[in-house]
């Protein structure tokens, strides 16, 4: 449903912006103008939610060694990582570690692969890339024996498999001025504020940056049910029972022969 009305909007936005940007270019801008916007800033998780695709677009003064990097970060959470091992023939969770806050969603897109854009040191300093997401354990949690790198790799692999973290280099810059990037939010995202950072790199160094925000909220019936269940658990329990009794009684009446 979402994608139905995004498509015409996307075309319109691209056309409008392209014209706008082109007029700037011909005027011969001396300074860097980094402007970016999103076609949607509110994402509603409703009953028919099955992920959302957003379009981020903007303009830069693009020179030969310029790059654009866009980072979208979802609400930070603690994550438990569990490791299974075989105990008398059965696979059981035997080890576990709890991570201090990491983004529950992380998408980094760029015009070229990150390691081409900037040095490892710069990427690390700016915290760019899946490998540079902080990997700190909460107090009292530890990784016994094994190499923490194995656990870190497991975290990245699993988050990627769930579609929550990803790294791509498919930002396109058109006519040296207009860039666009797709942001795919999968169905399993958490509600909250999604911070968007748009970075302009020139010759391997950060040159300019701008920010944006996406607000993901549960809305409608599914939001109300969730709120009810978590804010008033006893009342929700009674409601669930009454609902079931009513449904069962109704079913018996409808099909009574």
């Amino acid at each position, binding site marked *: 449903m979402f994608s139905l009305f995004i498509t015409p909007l996307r075309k319109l936005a691209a056309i409008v912006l392209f014209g706008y940007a082109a007029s700037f270019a011909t005027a011969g801008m001396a300074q860097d103008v980094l402007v970016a916007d999103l076609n949607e800033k509110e994402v509603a*998780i*409703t*009953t*028919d*939610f*099955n*992920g959302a695709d957003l379009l981020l677009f903007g303009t830069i003064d693009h020179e030969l060694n310029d790059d654009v990097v866009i980072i979208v970060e979802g609400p930070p*959470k*603690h*994550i*438990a*990582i*569990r*490791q*299974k*091992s*075989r105990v008398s*023939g*059965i*696979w*059981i*969770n035997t080890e*576990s570690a709890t991570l201090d806050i990491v983004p*529950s969603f992380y998408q980094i897109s760029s015009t070229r692969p990150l390691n081409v854009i900037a040095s490892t040191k710069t990427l690390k300093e700016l915290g760019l890339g899946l490998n540079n997401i902080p990997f700190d354990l909460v107090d009292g949690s530890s990784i016994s024996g094994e190499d923490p790198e194995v*656990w870190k790799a*497991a*975290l990245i*692999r*699993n*988050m990627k*498999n*769930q579609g929550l973290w990803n790294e791509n280099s498919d930002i396109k810059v058109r006519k040296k001025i207009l860039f666009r990037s797709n942001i795919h939010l999968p*169905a*399993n995202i*958490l509600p909250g504020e999604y911070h968007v950072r748009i970075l302009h790199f020139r010759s391997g160094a950060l040159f300019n940056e701008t920010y944006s925000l996406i607000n993901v909220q*549960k809305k409608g*019936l*599914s*939001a109300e*049910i*969730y709120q009810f*269940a*978590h804010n008033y*658990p*006893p009342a*929700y*329990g*009674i409601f*669930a*029972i009454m*609902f*079931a*009794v009513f*449904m*069962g*009684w109704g*079913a*018996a009446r*409808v*099909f009574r022969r």
Partner: protein
Amino acid sequence: MYIYLPIAEISINIFLILGLGGMVGLLSGIFGVGGGFLMTPLLIFLGVPAAVAVGTEANQIVASSVSGVLAHWRRGNVDIKMGIILLAGGIVGSTIGVYIFALLREIGQIDLAIKLSFIVFLGIIGSLMLVESTRAILRSRRPGGKRRKLHQHNWLHGLPFKMRFRKSKLYISALLPFGVGLIVGILSAIMGVGGGFIMVPAMIYLLGMPTSVVVGTSLFQIIFVTANVTFLQSVQTQTVDVVLAGLLLIGGVIGAQFGTRIGAMLRGEQLRGLLALIVLAVCLKLVWDVVITPEDIFSLELLR
């Protein structure tokens, strides 16, 4: 068409859920069983978190037991006194069960505990049913076999607190049905089942109740025990998804209507044999899941 389940927090094809409800409803109509013991593992196979599958299934069983008990109630096939003693045990058992459940969830072992419980009980019940129905089929081909006694007297009949159950024509210790209710209650909470598949055989073979009142009485008891589980899971773990339960129920009710008609055309021992095979197939799939090397030995859980 996808629907976002508010408590499971996943997006799932609505027809898949309706179809699953319909299929399990069909089976429960054919075989006259509750179906929780099949529904919970199948939901887990579909990717519903195990804890949500259990909490939600308890809620759905409340509904299906209410619709099932009404017919038995009208025919007077419910031994209320026996039901209340079973229920007392069931309430204690299911309360203990929900606490065990919350504890296992905390330490990250709930998925495994649910799967292992299903493997053990589906394995035992499936094998017993298969053996029994095979024997019955063989016996029916060789007429003139001798009948067994209704029930034997043993040490269980020496227990204190004896009570008279008029409808069941029994004079037995109240501790027996209480104990049965207690054990089934614990399993009900941990596995998200009504427990009919354990309680019915226990009522017939252990308590010696007449078959005519067994199903009605067990359904009567299951309503209250699963209602207790629904309430406690809502309070303790917030794993009851009413949207999922409602969809499963709609599918289940329709499936059961066709099932009852098909069931009436098949013979009892063949039915039991067929059900035994289905139960064993689900059991084997679960064994397979915990025994084969997982794709990734690491797993994640986002904490709130």
